[in-house]
């Protein structure tokens, strides 16, 4: 193990230690203000220190990593199957780690201010475990990022699900929070059924769960197709792809910094990242890519359309995450992991920015409903400008980051559609490309709507004190995230950054890749005008609708479609009807059958035996004459039998 791999191994360990220590801190006696404040300070210090330490390690890793590094040791041997403890590091892993830790640090700092108030009039008593859980969440994501073994990856993968469950249920004032938390864990867990089976297939086929061994092994076509399709189920759960996306909008019940953490850098990024990690397997499995591409297109449009009709500002952002994840998986489906990773990184920056800025708005006006906001541009200028940058990046306004990365995705899809490049069939390229273009239009429309409804127009219903920009502890993380949200896209020009995201070239072709100029992530072709035109059209339509209605909701233009979009095509109801209700009915039936039939047979046997015994007992309880007669009859029978047997013998 050298310095690089040591850094990689320490990366999840540092926040994990901070998290575990934080969970073990004795709870402060409630009511004693001094004890409570101290406990809070210690918890905050631990959380921020853990995140900062991880960020420092991630940056150090990025700087020192000159070529892919790997180190592992056997964790356990289970009957010929090797499970290892180890790290597998490359440029993409280091960059994603930097993104994760940056967002985590911003979220930790932001949370110290955002979670100051619990229920009205008292501080949030459960801040210390909250901070520890955020650390643990970060550690789990980093484990997924650096893990060199599928089982170890699964550990981080599922611990992340647990942490999201704990954090979404944090707010005790929201009655819907526990249900949302449970939904998030359960829906992703359903996907993980497939993920576990996929890992099992790959591990059994390769005889080892080490990613390097799994990638190096020659799997049979059937095994590979089955395994990749099964893995996709897990990816769909974590990365909120149709039809397992339903948990993500509900997860808005969690505190806003948690939404930033889940939507930007952890959890939803894990699925996309896991595919890039196992890319050679997927590349060799066109069936899986076709399925992924179709799901991606559906997810992309579904999320974008659902975002158009929401009134809750966090739900708009949540659905936009679903849609943007569709871009990432779409890029993977048309065979371009670098484009997917590039969009993942820029999305991490601008979505974290948007959520934290939205948190500042919510913090200030005390509601999440856009219908009660408006005119905040003057009272909250810093938040306004930061949101503007974030929304611009989301919609893909040049030269903000999202423009470049989305352009990369669209270019990859266009290549696949027009030239048949990549492993996917051309029709899939067309599908992803067209869906992506429509998505650009819709995204521009709802991003403009969000901006207009929140920051322009007449001031909404005043709630309590007048709105104001947030205090420094909330402001600085937002400002810091605005920088990469604006500029990260420029890093996509050929150079060091884009080289990091390229899949590791095979060792033999080193010489070739040295001769060729490094392939940048940005492809500026004339077709770039197409999404730009759509962007202008979408934003213009939203603005026109807003103007015509004199500050009314542009969503009224949706007409009868509005309630359908607002409820996201009622897929929640479909899920409830097709999965939840049958399961509950089956559970009731199983319980009744178990108690009446299985246990009934047992108790019935007992009762029958008692009845039989009672009956025999009654027969034996006879008066003397009958008893004497019975004894004599018995003696006679035995005597006869003896005589008969004796005679024949």
């Amino acid at each position: 193990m050298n310095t690089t791999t040591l850094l990689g191994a320490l990366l999840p360990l540092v926040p994990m230690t901070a998290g575990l220590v934080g969970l073990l801190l004795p709870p402060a006696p409630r009511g004693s203000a001094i004890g409570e404040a101290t406990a809070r300070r210690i918890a905050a210090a631990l959380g921020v220190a853990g995140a900062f330490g991880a960020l420092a390690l991630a940056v150090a890793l990025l700087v020192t990593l000159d070529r892919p590094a790997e180190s592992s040791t056997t964790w356990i041997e289970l009957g010929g199957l090797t499970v290892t403890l180890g790290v597998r590091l490359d440029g993409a892993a280091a960059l994603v780690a930097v993104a994760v830790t940056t967002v985590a640090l911003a979220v930790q700092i932001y949370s110290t201010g955002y979670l100051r108030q619990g229920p009205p009039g008292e501080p949030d008593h459960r801040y210390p475990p909250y901070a520890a859980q955020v650390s643990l969440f970060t550690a789990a994501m980093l484990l997924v990022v650096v893990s060199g073994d599928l089982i170890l990856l699964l550990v981080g993968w599922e611990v992340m699900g647990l942490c999201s469950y704990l954090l979404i249920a944090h707010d005790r004032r929201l009655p819907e929070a526990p249900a949302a938390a449970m939904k998030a864990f359960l829906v992703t867990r359903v996907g993980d059924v497939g993920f576990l089976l996929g890992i099992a297939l790959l591990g059994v086929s390769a005889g080892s769960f080490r990613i390097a061994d799994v990638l190096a092994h020659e799997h049979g076509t059937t095994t590979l197709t089955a395994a990749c399709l099964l893995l996709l189920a897990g990816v769909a759960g974590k990365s909120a792809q149709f039809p397992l996306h339903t948990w993500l909008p509900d997860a808005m019940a969690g505190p806003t910094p948690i939404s930033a953490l889940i939507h930007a850098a952890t959890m939803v990024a894990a699925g996309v990242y896991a595919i890039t990690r196992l890319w050679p397997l997927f590349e060799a499995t066109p069936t899986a890519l076709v399925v992924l591409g179709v799901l991606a297109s559906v997810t992309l449009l579904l999320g974008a359309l659902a975002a158009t009709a929401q009134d809750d500002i966090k739900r708009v952002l949540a659905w936009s995450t679903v849609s943007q994840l569709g871009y990432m998986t779409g890029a993977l489906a048309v065979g371009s992991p670098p484009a997917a990773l590039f969009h993942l990184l820029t999305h991490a920056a601008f979505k974290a920015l948007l959520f934290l800025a939205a948190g500042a708005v919510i913090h200030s006006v005390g509601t999440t409903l856009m219908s009660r906001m408006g005119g905040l541009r003057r009272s909250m200028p810093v938040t306004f400008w930061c949101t503007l940058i974030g929304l611009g990046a989301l919609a893909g306004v040049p030269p903000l980051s999202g423009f470049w990365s989305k352009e990369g995705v669209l270019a990859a899809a266009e290549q696949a559609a027009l030239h048949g490049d990549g492993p996917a069939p051309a029709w899939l390229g067309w599908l992803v490309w067209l869906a992506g273009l429509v998505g650009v239009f819709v995204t521009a429309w709802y991003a403009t709507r969000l901006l207009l409804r929140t920051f322009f127009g007449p001031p909404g219903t005043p709630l309590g004190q007048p709105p104001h920009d947030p205090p420094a502890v909330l402001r600085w993380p937002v400002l810091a995230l605005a920088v990469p949200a604006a500029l990260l896209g420029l890093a996509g020009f050929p150079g060091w950054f884009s080289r990091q995201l390229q899949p590791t070239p095979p060792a033999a072709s080193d010489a070739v890749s040295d001769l060729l100029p490094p392939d940048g992530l940005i492809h500026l072709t004339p077709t770039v005008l197409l999404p730009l035109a759509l962007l202008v059209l979408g934003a213009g339509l939203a603005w026109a609708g807003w103007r015509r209605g004199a500050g009314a909701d542009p969503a009224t233009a949706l007409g009868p479609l509005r309630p359908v979009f607002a409820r996201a095509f009622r897929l929640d109801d479909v899920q409830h009807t097709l999965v939840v209700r049958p399961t509950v009915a089956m559970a009731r039936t199983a319980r009744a059958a178990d108690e009446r039939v299985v246990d009934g047979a047992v108790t019935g046997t007992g009762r029958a035996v008692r009845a039989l015994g009672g009956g025999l007992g009654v027969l034996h309880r006879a008066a003397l004459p009958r008893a004497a007669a019975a004894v004599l009859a018995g003696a006679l029978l035995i005597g006869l039998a003896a005589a008969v047997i004796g005679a024949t013998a």
Partner: protein
Amino acid sequence: MTSGEFLLLAVLALPALGALAVAATPRDRAARLVGTIAAALTLVAAVALVAGRSPGWTATAPAVRPWHAVDLPWVPGLDLRFHLGVDGISWPLVVLTALLTLLCCGYCLWRVPGGGSGRALVALLLVVEVGILGTFLALDLVLFFLFFEVVLLPMYAIIVGWGGDGTDPVALDARRRAGRKFALYTLFGSVLLLVGVYVVVAAAGTADIGALTGGTELSRSTQLAAFTLLALAFAVKSPLWPLHSWLPDAHTQAPTVGSVLLAGVLLKMGTYGLIRVAVGVAPEGARWAAPVLGVLAVAAILIGSLVCLAQTELKRLIAYSSVGHMGFVLLGVATLTATGIQAALIGNVAHGIITGLLFFLAGAIKDRTHTGALSDLSGLRETAPRLSGLLAFAAVASLGLPGLAGFWGEAFAVVAAVESGGALWTTLAVLAAIGGALTAAYLLRLLRRVTHGEPSPAVAALGPKLAGAELVAWTPLVLLALAVGLVPTLVLGVAEAPVEALVGVVAR
């Protein structure tokens, strides 16, 4: 006598003598203390067994290579031998038994469930321990059967004497009924075990498990008959669906310490017996019956989880969860692969740790709120955050979160089924994995009902304090759930060689 032999005898003698000493000590508290000390010494002896192990010891058949063994003539006229031994398959279970008994005895120092004297309870716990440890250590079939039976009556007495929710006639009747069902049902299993043992011993002419393992002495038809009988007997104890219906009643009615021992180690006698005796002695029968066993195991996983999803009582839910979890263990055994049997072993130990903890916590909640109905419990995290946090930890461990103890057994039972290949085993793997999702569903439902929401009247009166004795009893289990999850070699490191040997003879 070598130190190993001495330790083996000490592991059995210490709790036995302890039980006598407890019974002879007149003062209640002093007696409980004596019992706890005996249990602690037993644990020390049990842990010490791992030291000085001699893996190359080859006096018996190669399939069973005990680290230490004691082989004494017992009833020479009947050719019965007092043959004990410990190896990597039995040692983790021996330590688990000693640990859980110690924790239960320590818990009894602090709180004695209503119904009888604490002295008698501790004495009975120690007698149960002797029986369980003897079962795990016996290397003679007849001796195995005897120890298997020793457990039954004291456990019956614990359920009937100290169990239930109160002293009113209805509760009394309920626990008597549960105790009777437990005793009679498992006695029915024991009859099958006795017949099975008789069939094997009569056909092979020896009762030595070491010599019998591999089934070389037995004809195919004998093996099929023997495996059927033995597997049925162990299926009752494990329990395997549909022979499980004694378990929910017994676990629900038993006092906290009784439930902990029942779920924690008593069930393991069934799975241990299946691996060591049924599969070992009649491998051909095992191969023949494996598909049936696998199907029933998966049925247990799915039905157990579904029933849990519709359960309305805390302890009953946890009791039913054992049916599902033991289904994973039995699925591992049914694959008859090294992966599967190792998964079964670690699943056994993990279930003992986690379900023991869950029953401790359920008992603590019931003791405090005097109700186990999920509809009367909610908002535990508002009034008792620590208790609620521990419950969440135990539930999460129980649903098989990777990184905690429960993961290895369940995930690798699925992996082993995938490894076995073929349409049947692949289907079973898929269904078992779906059962894993259902497990998460019912445990999250439990947490949502009990810990989240507004405090119910029963919960609102709770304070956040935990008693010192509770912390002492629970901390080792919490730490072990974490340690076994992170370092599974703690359990499987010693088991690898004996499992390979066993699979070697089974596959022959």
